[in-house]
């Protein structure tokens, strides 16, 4: 618990109604969407950059760690903070400041919910391309901190590819502006991108200048059912090899299909080994050509049947079901671990098979959903945390999954981040000199190690 003196000073900065520090309220800020828990000292809700500067300066003066928090839907424990940290919630710092249709940009405060930005951009025929499954609740600030991907990531890329500039409060309390609209005509180092994916450890984003993308006139959403994961994986590879860049391409395995169908009731085939859900967008002539190529790939890879969504409602239903995967799987067993591995796309089918084998080997349930288009798999392992043996087995299975990923030339986190969850895998993924270089970056931004400490670097 933080001293009353500190709490009072925080109240002066943001107003008493924007400071929480009772035992019960702290309990509800001790979690995010990961299995990790923190023990906040206080939660504050600033609504201006100046307030955040004051909070940081106060934290510096009294040597208190700070942790930024958006919607608290982080999957790797990045938002829970260390004991007695000041949790700086950006939930109320949430205005969309400007949408510029000529520049195709949006200037937003970090607490803006991703979906809100989508809705605001729509009347201009624009969209904010990164759409993580949590988009209805997760915030731009959080998306930037984790370089969130999205279901549209295959074609449109992930968050960092849509960030043009930032306003950041550094751990020193100084405010900097990075990036901008103009093409570079004199040499300068752009610090915008080191903050993307920095998981809130190098400073707090207080404004983001984002790039918006024109919404394409024609969209076609398709599903195809397969009898084996390998067939589905091979189909994905073929689609890419044909030069088709779908907007999104997802693979769901049987465990996931069943769980999602229970929630969404869309008539998804509960006995299918794998389902591909994909979407293409573009000008009508382009989508027609792409659909033809895709259907060819379905046929070449033994798809049992395939469908094209006939109207917008059917399309929305499919995507709602897809976004519900993480939650829907929660009911299988009391606890679960979601992994976020990426392998080169030409190794996707192999990796799906390897994970299935690991499930067999350890006799556990693993549901697999993959952003197949960019080789990003989310194997989810289920267990009952009350049974100590189960937790151990899960740990071993996870280790094996990570090892295999690295063997396949992949990476340990595609979009969820390292946080607390994958700290122990960092030395497997990076050599000591590489980790040292990263430590030097952290050191130069945050020499006192107060900004969201304890995560990302072991």
């Amino acid at each position: 618990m933080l001293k009353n003196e500190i709490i009072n000073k925080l109240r002066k900065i943001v107003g008493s109604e924007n400071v929480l520090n009772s035992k019960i309220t702290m309990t509800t800020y001790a979690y995010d969407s990961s299995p990790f828990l923190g023990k906040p000292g206080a939660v504050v809700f600033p609504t201006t950059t100046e307030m955040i500067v004051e909070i940081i300066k106060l934290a510096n003066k009294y040597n208190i760690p700070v942790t930024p928090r958006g919607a608290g839907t982080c999957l790797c424990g990045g938002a829970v903070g260390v004991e007695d940290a000041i949790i700086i919630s950006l939930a109320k710092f949430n205005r969309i400041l400007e949408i510029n249709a000529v520049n195709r940009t949006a200037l937003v405060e970090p607490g803006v919910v991703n979906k809100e930005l989508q809705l605001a951009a729509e009347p201009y025929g624009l969209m904010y391309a990164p759409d993580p499954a949590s988009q209805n609740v997760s915030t731009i600030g959080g998306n930037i901190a984790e370089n969130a991907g999205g279901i549209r990531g295959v074609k449109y890329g992930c968050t960092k590819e849509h960030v043009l500039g930032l306003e950041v409060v550094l751990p020193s309390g100084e405010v900097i502006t990075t990036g901008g609209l103009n093409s570079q005509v004199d040499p300068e180092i752009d610090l915008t991108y080191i903050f993307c994916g920095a998981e809130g450890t190098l400073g707090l984003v207080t404004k983001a200048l984002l790039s918006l993308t024109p919404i394409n006139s024609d969209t076609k959403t398709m599903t195809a059912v397969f009898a084996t994961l390998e067939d589905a994986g091979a189909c994905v590879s073929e689609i890419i090899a044909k030069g088709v860049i779908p907007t999104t391409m997802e693979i769901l395995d049987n465990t996931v299909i069943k769980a999602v169908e229970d929630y969404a009731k869309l008539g998804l085939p509960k006995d299918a080994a794998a389902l591909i859900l994909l979407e293409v967008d573009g000008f009508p002539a382009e989508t027609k050509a792409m659909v033809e190529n895709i259907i060819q790939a379905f046929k070449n890879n033994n798809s049992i049947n395939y469908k094209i969504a006939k109207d917008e409602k059917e399309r929305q239903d499919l995507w709602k079901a897809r976004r519900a995967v993480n939650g829907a799987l929660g009911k299988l067993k009391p606890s679960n671990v979601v992994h976020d591995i990426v392998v080169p796309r030409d190794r996707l089918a192999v990796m799906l098979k390897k994970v299935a084998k690991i499930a067999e080997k350890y006799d556990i349930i693993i549901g697999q959903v993959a952003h197949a288009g960019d080789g990003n798999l989310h194997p989810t392992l289920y267990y009952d945390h009350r049974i100590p043996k189960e937790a151990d087995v899960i740990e071993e299975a996870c280790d094996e999954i990570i090892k295999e990923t690295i063997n396949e030339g992949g990476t340990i986190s595609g979009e969820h981040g390292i946080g607390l969850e994958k700290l122990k895998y960092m030395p497997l993924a990076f050599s000591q000199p590489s980790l040292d270089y990263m430590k030097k970056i952290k050191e130069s931004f945050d020499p006192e190690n107060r900004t969201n400490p304890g995560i990302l670097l072991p």
Partner: protein
Amino acid sequence: MNKNVILEVLMKCNRCGLCQEVCPTYRVSGNEFAVARGRNRLIRMAIEGQLEFDKEPEIEQFINECLLCKACETNCPSGVPTPELISQVREYYTSTKGLPIAKKIMYRGVFSHNKRIDLVRRLAKVYQKTGIKTLVRMTGVNNIFNKADDMLPDLPKNSVRGQLPMLLKNIHQPKYKVAYFLGCSVNNFFSSIGVATIKVLQKNSCQIIVPDVNCCGAPHNSAGDQREFKRLAIKNLKELAKLDPDAIIVDCSTCGSILKEYVGLFENEPEYQKLAKQIAEKVKDISSFLIEIGFKKEMGEIKARVTYHDPCHGVRFLNVQEAPREILKSIPGIELIEMNEADMCCGGAGSYSIFYPKLSRQILSRKINNFKKTGASILATSCPACTMQLSFGMKLHELTSPVKHPVELLAEAYDNKAK
């Protein structure tokens, strides 16, 4: 409260956070303790023994601040029945601590007794129409009830029950025989809805019986007063069992939902549960019933842009969503436009607006702002509790748009034809 059962259910929540999107208390406050996953976490920690229900007043507060609107459960990928969990905790508090005095007076003191509600209405009417109101306001006594007097609509002179002799007609060769469950709110506060319901049903060849029921028990249930809830339920079931109608019509979504919930209430009492099931099967929301029987379409015009607010009990408990809209669309001259977040709670939640005014008004403002954006001149809804809250909202925002039940508009359209 079966702790083990609750715990098993609670563990389905993996804190994905999707409840944040639809929970009204979260949308207006931005606080984790005002959303399903936060409330679930508190319940879980209390059941697991890390916190104590009885020693932490904030737990009770946050549990009570839930509207029980079910938006979270409907949107939850794991289907965690948070409102059910919350109800069980409230039941625990009520059975161990008893109801707070204000709720005791209101629920057990007044709502449980038809005659008393009638008396209160008549007194309140006097209060509204005379200088007593000013006097009371000067003394500040009304502050106990958080200025609830402000929220009262203009009370009608007579209850619906009082007008029944004049309203009910003998239908020549009726096509249907229906029982009309006349709920407290319609009876006492929004008699025009009741009058319209009777008119419309009779116009559509229904012979109506209005049984002598008492409060359905909704407020008692939401406060966790299970004992009183059961008592009222049994009385209603016995009364309704005397009849054999084709349908039991409700024009209040809340009453309709609660009547159906009697089935679960008597889980361990097979005699009453059997009765409850029979009754539940016959309960029909007026809009659904009218669509089913193919209501008469000969009507005059109402020229207006109308938007519909889905009562929580309508859209998420009775699964009524299309029927009221179809009725509105069938009226010539009405332009039906959808408002944003049409199915989000209005913040009324029965007496929630009295006991949690700040949150209630924030949620109400959000609703009224959504209404304003449609440019509609009439706000339609199928629950008198919503009607009360929304009318209050119009007052607060200095709007004159009326709040009407679809059946009222239908009755008006029928009248317009006659003109």
